[in-house]
């Protein structure tokens, strides 16, 4: 299956799961489990940065149109898509190692720790920016912090479950081939 087709299917599935399963869950009326942005974390390495931004924007916008509040998720998605390449460069074990695999995963990032840091940092940035925009006129800083931290914890849990359930097979691409 081509990478393009795979990503289109993945995108549709993530949006459907987010809108029709996770958005219906309300934990103590404060935390909404988010998983949809994992799509952006899984985008291929070799995609140009401008394209990543465009895709993130469109993806966030689709989710927003289900929620009738345009802009919020698009803004958060664009932000993490922009920060993503910096983090990848920082965390990848050696120069050029991101050419060996298609997309970020435990294997391609060289261990659980770098991958977990990558996911955790982007998750917390996504949530913080999203809730900050949502909470624009509510000045309660503690509410915002607690909501961000709890939602991040739930999202990380969901991401770990997703990684365990759906093993992404990745071929090692040698330079010589």
């Amino acid at each position, binding site marked *: 299956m081509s990478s393009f087709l795979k990503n289109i299917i993945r995108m549709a599935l993530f949006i459907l799961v987010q809108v029709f399963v996770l958005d219906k869950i309300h934990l103590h009326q404060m935390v*909404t489990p988010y998983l949809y942005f994992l799509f952006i974390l899984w985008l291929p390495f070799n995609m140009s940065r401008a394209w990543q931004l465009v895709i993130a924007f469109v993806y966030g916008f689709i989710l927003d149109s289900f929620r009738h509040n345009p802009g919020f998720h698009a803004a958060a998605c664009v932000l993490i898509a922009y920060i993503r390449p910096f983090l990848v460069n920082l965390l990848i074990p050696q120069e050029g190692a991101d050419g060996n695999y298609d997309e970020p995963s435990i294997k391609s990032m060289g261990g659980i720790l770098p991958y977990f840091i990558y996911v955790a940092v982007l998750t917390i940035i996504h949530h913080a920016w999203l809730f900050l925009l949502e909470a624009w006129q509510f000045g309660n800083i503690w509410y915002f912090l607690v909501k961000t931290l709890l939602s991040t914890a739930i999202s990380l849990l969901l991401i770990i479950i997703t990684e365990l359930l759906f093993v992404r097979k990745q071929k090692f691409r040698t330079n010589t081939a």
Partner: protein
Amino acid sequence: MRNIFLFIRRYFNLFFFLLLQGCCIYLIVHYNTYHNAVFSNTANQLTGKINEQYNKVEDYFHLKKTNDSLVKANERLYNKLKADFQLPDSVSKIVLDTIKVDSLTQYRKYTYMQAAVIENSVNTQSNFIVLGRGKKQQLKEGMGLVDINNAAVGIITAVSDDYAVVMSLLHKDSHISGKLFKSGETGTLSWDGKTPNIISLNGIPKSAKVAAGDTIITSGFSTSFPRGMLVGYVTEVIPEKSSNNYLIKFKTAADFYNLQYVYAIDNSQQEAVDQLLEKAKQTK
């Protein structure tokens, strides 16, 4: 000139990122006010279709609950029937008027129209409800919405051909006027964006007698809701230190977690009232 192009090329990604963020923030600011609650009718139609399919499945699981509340609503209505009351003979005497008035069409003020809820959210700070009924099925902007037990739910802010979007009471920009049933003071309902089903009523003076458990109804000052629709029950009365008002927290009578069917209320005299107001403004 060449340097400018080089500069732009070098920081292209940053500029592009800032541009997209700017777009998002423009969308947020521009489309989240009261009147622009829906950004486009086409998006509304498209997501509406998907939601409708999903809702067909979901409805199945709520059938029992929906039935129960319908039975309750029926019970309440039966208790209101004229036949249940014994009236003194002299009062119930019917006098025929010589002028014939077509009472049904001309004097009816409010018409109820049922609509299915196809999408509903409670967990953001601006929540909307989408109805599977639209312009073609006589829904208009500004209509009030009640659930099957006659408790206020929200106001329609946008309609497309087959769908309507409702700003629920659980929206930070929703300001419907409410009234204390017992003492009659009127205030404004607003939601702080935190706990669903808990709304506050502002602008009630400290001279009013309020206690937990009191009923709050719609005031009937706006053309959206008739007077006396149930809104909620007071749970907490907090005196505001800085003003002469109470901050009253109340639990909504409508359960926003479980909305399956609602009624839109059409005020057939709305145009007449609007015209009169317009006239009064012009003569000034």
